[in-house]
């Protein structure tokens, strides 16, 4: 990993230069990338070894400092703070990698994969085990202190995505188990078309899986496999393969062959301020009013 190049490109050292992020947030970002360097999986190592090739496909990729860590899909802006939890930081970076390398393209039949995962969990052979795990995960058992952060984070949200719910009723109607981490029903389910929102589900599933991979949470990945079967895991693994291949392709290409005008424009305007736009808007309104007045006088 070319740490010095990353800092040169994305870090702001001089207080007079407002472009880029400060040292604290950048240190956290570098720490997150270093988790990739020591990974057993060569595809994960490959991502960080060639991270500068992001500039070819997403020249507007930038890092901001903020309290909350998140990734803006359209502007390829990654926000992080000096205190961001590593599971969260790697989850959001998973969104970034999927968006930049794959435009978050959903695999074919992912809706069927979700249905099969649900069927596997509720299969008579597995149902009891699934119910016990949900109660444990949601802190309803004496073993709740044994839950890992990875279970409470990415594993919990994957379960939430498969069922498109923030919790489940287990056994009895009043035994509501809310997942420690989840997204709302509205986020994962498309009410207008009465079906799961597969794009969002895939995006979050990949980001959660990516977080588990980078943090080497092999136990938690096995939990997902036991709950939902092999196909979900295999789909995520195939996605990592695609991303790895894409990175190798991009390395060989010249930037001009890859970059689009709109993405390059976004790069050029990323550090514009609100007041600068407002000044032009006011001038445009005055011009329009003047033209209308002149039109009326004629």
């Amino acid at each position: 990993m070319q740490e010095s190049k990353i800092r040169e490109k994305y870090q702001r050292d001089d207080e007079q230069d407002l472009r880029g992020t400060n040292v604290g947030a950048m240190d956290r970002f570098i720490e997150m990338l270093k988790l990739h360097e020591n990974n057993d999986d060569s595809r994960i190592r490959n991502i960080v070894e060639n991270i500068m090739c992001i500039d070819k496909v997403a020249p507007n990729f930038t890092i901001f400092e903020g309290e909350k860590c998140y990734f803006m899909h359209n502007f390829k802006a990654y926000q992080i703070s000096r205190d961001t939890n590593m599971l969260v930081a790697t989850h959001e970076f998973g969104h970034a990698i999927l968006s930049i390398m794959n435009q978050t393209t959903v695999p074919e039949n992912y809706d069927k994969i979700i249905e099969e995962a649900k069927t596997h969990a509720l299969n008579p052979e597995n149902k009891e085990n699934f119910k016990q795990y949900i109660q444990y995960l949601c802190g309803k058992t004496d073993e709740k202190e044994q839950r890992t952060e990875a279970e409470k984070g990415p594993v919990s949200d994957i379960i939430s995505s498969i069922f498109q719910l923030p919790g489940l009723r287990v056994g009895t109607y009043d035994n509501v188990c809310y997942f420690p981490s989840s997204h709302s029903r509205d986020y994962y389910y498309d009410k207008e078309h009465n079906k799961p929102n597969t794009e969002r589900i895939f995006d979050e599933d990949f980001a959660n899986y990516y977080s588990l991979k980078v943090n080497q949470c092999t136990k938690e990945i096995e939990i997902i496999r036991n709950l939902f079967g092999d196909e979900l895991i295999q789909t995520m693994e195939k996605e990592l393969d695609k991303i790895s291949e894409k990175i190798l392709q991009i390395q060989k290409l010249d930037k001009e062959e890859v970059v689009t005008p709109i993405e390059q424009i976004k790069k050029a305007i990323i550090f514009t301020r609100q007041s600068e736009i407002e000044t032009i808007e006011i001038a445009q309104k005055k011009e329009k009013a003047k033209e209308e007045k002149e039109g009326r006088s004629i």
Partner: protein
Amino acid sequence: MNEISVQSATQLNKILSFLTQEHKQKIPADMIHILEKKADTQIDTKINKISDIDEENILPETRKYLAYIFLNYLATEEEKKEYSIILKNNERQYQNYLKKKFNPENIFGSKQKNIKNENIEEKQNLPVVSKKNIFQWIWEKLKRIGRKKI
């Protein structure tokens, strides 16, 4: 758009020439017309390929107009939402930077202390003037008149 400089109009015109027809059609025709009319082909825009469209190569004025055009005509709804957040963040960061650099408390803080000290010193040097009410004043006057007659 009429107020844009010739240099910026030339750069902006060149940048917009890289857009696909689908994107160009979203920009009002009169705006494109103004830019084309103002552009000076003799000026070197420093933009010869797409990757040259960079903040380092374009004028600040060009960047602002480009941002305005992007936000109002080229951005999707999702892009508008995200870019609006970025614009506000940048503004906040800039205002914090200005506050730090030109903090009024830092500029006037030491002067305020000096003024306070001066006031105390001045008060100590001033002669004491006693305050009299009207009856005391009349009595003093009568006493003086009485002394004169004697």
